[in-house]
C-alpha cells in the first residue's frame, strides 16, 4: 500500500489464510450439506462462496465461524487448527443474513457488544466505536434504537458490529440479499472498497452470480455440498468447469457435442472446425455470437437462424433464436440502428475463440 496507512489498515498484516481440508457435514443420514470440500483462501482475499440455496455455502460459513462442527475434515484459520475451538475464541466475526442485531440495545450498544465481551478498556471501546462508525458512515445513528433504522442502515450496523472487533477474517452471509437493487449495487461497491482498504480476509456468501463476479477476487461454486469449481470471476464465467456452473453463471447456449475428432466437433447446429478440448458440451457465451442481417455482407463460417423473440434490455437487446430447431441466445448493443425483428432470418457468426468446451455436470 502506497498511501499513508490509517489506523485500521494496520490490520492488513494480521489478515489470515483459511485452509479447508476434506470437510464434510451431514445433518441426517441422507442430508449431506457438505461433501469432502477442500479449498484454501489467501490472506486479504475477497473470497466468495456461490451456489443455489441448499448447496452448503452457509453451512461452510457456519463451520468457519465455529457455530457448527464438521463431521470430518479440518479447518485452519491463520495456520491454527479450529478443531474444538468455540466461536467466542475465534478471531472471526460474522455479518448475518438477518443481521441478528440485539433489539434491546441501541446502535452504539450493539456495536460495543463484542468489545465488552473481550473486556477492552472503556477508552479503547469508545475509540474503536467512533472510528468504525465513521468508516461505515453511521456516526450519526449511534444513539438510535434498532427499530428506528432502515434496512440499509441495519446492514451497516451489522457490518460495524463485526468490523469493530478487527477480526482476522470477516464472514458475510448474504448480507445484501434483503436490500433493494439500487442500494444493493452501491453497497457492493462500498464493501469491495472497504475490504481493499482494510486488507482483511472476507468470506462472502451469495446466490447471485453477478454480485459474486463484481465483488470477488476468487469464487468457489458449490453444488449439492460439493465444490464444483474454484477460480477468478473471469475463469468461472468464461471457462466454467461443467454444465452446472455454466448454467448457474447464466449461460444458455450449451450445445451437446455429438462427435469430435482431430479437426473439429459436431453439434446440433453444425460442425465447427478447430482444436477443441474433450468434453460433453460446447458453450457459446453471448459475446461469441455476432448477429448479421441477411442483407449484410456475409462473413465466412456463418450459420442461419430465425429470430423468435426480441427482449429490450436497455443498453442491449437480447435475441432468442432458433437455429436448426435449437434455441440460442445472442445480444446486440443498441447503437441507434434498428435491429432485426421477430420472424426475421439472420446470420450468426460464431467466434470460436470465445467458446469453451465443458464437462457434463459432476464430471469436472
Amino acid at each position, binding site marked *: 500500500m502506497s498511501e499513508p496507512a490509517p489506523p485500521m489498515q494496520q490490520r492488513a498484516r494480521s489478515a489470515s489464510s483459511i485452509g479447508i481440508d476434506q470437510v464434510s457435514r451431514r445433518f441426517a443420514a441422507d442430508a449431506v450439506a457438505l461433501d469432502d470440500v477442500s479449498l484454501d483462501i489467501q490472506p486479504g482475499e475477497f473470497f466468495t462462496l456461490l451456489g443455489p440455496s441448499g448447496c452448503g455455502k452457509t453451512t461452510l460459513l457456519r463451520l468457519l465461524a465455529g457455530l457448527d462442527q464438521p463431521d470430518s475434515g479440518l479447518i485452519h484459520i491463520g495456520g491454527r487448527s479450529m478443531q474444538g475451538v468455540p466461536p*467466542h475464541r475465534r478471531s472471526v466475526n460474522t455479518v448475518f443474513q438477518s443481521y*441478528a442485531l440485539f433489539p434491546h440495545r441501541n446502535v452504539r450498544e450493539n456495536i460495543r457488544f463484542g468489545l465488552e*465481551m473481550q473486556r477492552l478498556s472503556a477508552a479503547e471501546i469508545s475509540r474503536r466505536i467512533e472510528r468504525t462508525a465513521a468508516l461505515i458512515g453511521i456516526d450519526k445513528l449511534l444513539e438510535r434504537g434498532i427499530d428506528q433504522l432502515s434496512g440499509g442502515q441495519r446492514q451497516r450496523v451489522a457490518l460495524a458490529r463485526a468490523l469493530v472487533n478487527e477480526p482476522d477474517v470477516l464472514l458475510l452471509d448474504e448480507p445484501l440479499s434483503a436490500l433493494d437493487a439500487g442500494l444493493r449495487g452501491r453497497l457492493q461497491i462500498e464493501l469491495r472498497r472497504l475490504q481493499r482498504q482494510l486488507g482483511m480476509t472476507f468470506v462472502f456468501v451469495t446466490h447471485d452470480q453477478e454480485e459474486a463476479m463484481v465483488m470477488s477476487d476468487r469464487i468457489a461454486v458449490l453444488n449439492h455440498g460439493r465444490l464444483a469449481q474454484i477460480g477468478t470471476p473471469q475463469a468461472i464465467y468464461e471457462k466454467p468447469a461443467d454444465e452446472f456452473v455454466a448454467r448457474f453463471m447464466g449461460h444458455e447456449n450449451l450445445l451437446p457435442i455429438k462427435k469430435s475428432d482431430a479437426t473439429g466437433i459436431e453439434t446440433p447446429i453444425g460442425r465447427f472446425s478447430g482444436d477443441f478440448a474433450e468434453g460433453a458440451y460446447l458453450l457459446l457465451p453471448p459475446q461469441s455470437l455476432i448477429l448479421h442481417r441477411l442483407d449484410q455482407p456475409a462473413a465466412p463460417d456463418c450459420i442461419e437462424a430465425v429470430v423468435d423473440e426480441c427482449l429490450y434490455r436497455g443498453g442491449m437487446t437480447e435475441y432468442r433464436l432458433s437455429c436448426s430447431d435449437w434455441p440460442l441466445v445472442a445480444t446486440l448493443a443498441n447503437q441507434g440502428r434498428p435491429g432485426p425483428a421477430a420472424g426475421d432470418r439472420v446470420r450468426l457468426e460464431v467466434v470460436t475463440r470465445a467458446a469453451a468446451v465443458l464437462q457434463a455436470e459432476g464430471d469436472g
Partner: protein
Amino acid sequence: MPKLARDTQHLLLTVTPGVLCILVFLVLPSLYLMGMAFLTNGPYGLPTLPLSLQAFRELAGFGFLGWSPGNLYTLLRSVWQTLLATLIVTLIAYPAAYYISTRPARWRALMLLAVVVPSWTNQVIRSVGWMNILAPGTPLADFAARLGFIEPQMGLFPSQFAVIIGLVYNFLPFMVLPLYAAFEKLDMAQVEAARDLFASPLSAFRHAVFPQTLPGLMAGVVLVAIPAFGMYVVTELLGGGRSMMIGNLVARQFAQASNWPLGAAGALIMIAVTLIGLKVLRNLGRRLGGDREVVL
C-alpha cells in the same frame, strides 16, 4: 333528540356494554368496599356510622388487649410466601418452557396439554389431593421423618411447606405458558451473533436469550404473584394458623368474625400492596430490559 353522527352511534354501541360491566361489577363494588373500610363495626356485627379509621387501627394490631403483631405478620407472611412461590415456579417453569419449546411439534402440544390439564380440576379437589399425599403415614411423610425434617408420626401438612407446594402446583401453568410463548419465538440468530461476538455460553444466555424471554417472564410473574398473594383456598386447606395469608384474614372477617369494615380494610391493603408490587416489577423490568417497557 339531536341526531348523532354515525361514528358516535357506533362508539356508544360497541363501548357501552363493556363500560357498564366494569362500572357495575368493578367500580361500584370497589367504591362500596372503600366506603365500608371507613365505617365502624357495630355491636351486632353490622357496619354502622360514624366514619372512622377503627378498621385500619384494628388491622394494624390495636385491639382491646393492646397492640399485637399478628396481622402485620400475616401481611408480611403473605408477601414472603408469594415471593417464595413465584421464585420456585420460575425456577421450574423457565427450564421446562425451554425444554418444551425445543421438542418436535407434536410433542410440544402434548407436553403443554400435560401442564395445563391439572388446572381444569377444581382448586379444592387438587388441594385435598395434596393433603392425601402429604398426610401422616404416607410414604412421602415417612421419608421426610426418616431424614429428620419432621417428627415421626407427623405429616407434612398442615405446614408452610404444604402451602408453598400448593401455590407452586397451582400457578405453574401460568408461568410455563407465557415463557413457552417467549421461547417459541426466540431468535436463535441473536444467540449465535452473541457467540460470534466473543460471548461465552453463559454470557450469550444473559445478553441474548434472557432479554428475549423477559417480557414472557414478567407476564408470568404478574399472572402468578397477584393471584398467589390473594390465595385463600390453598392456605385454608394445606396451611395451619402459622401459614395464614391476608386472603384468609379478609375472608374470616366476612364469614366468621363478622367484622366487615376490618375485612374491607384488609382488601384495600391487598390492592395497595399489589399496585406497589406491580410498580416495583415495572421498574425492575425496565432496568433488566434496557429501558424498554416490558410490563404494561
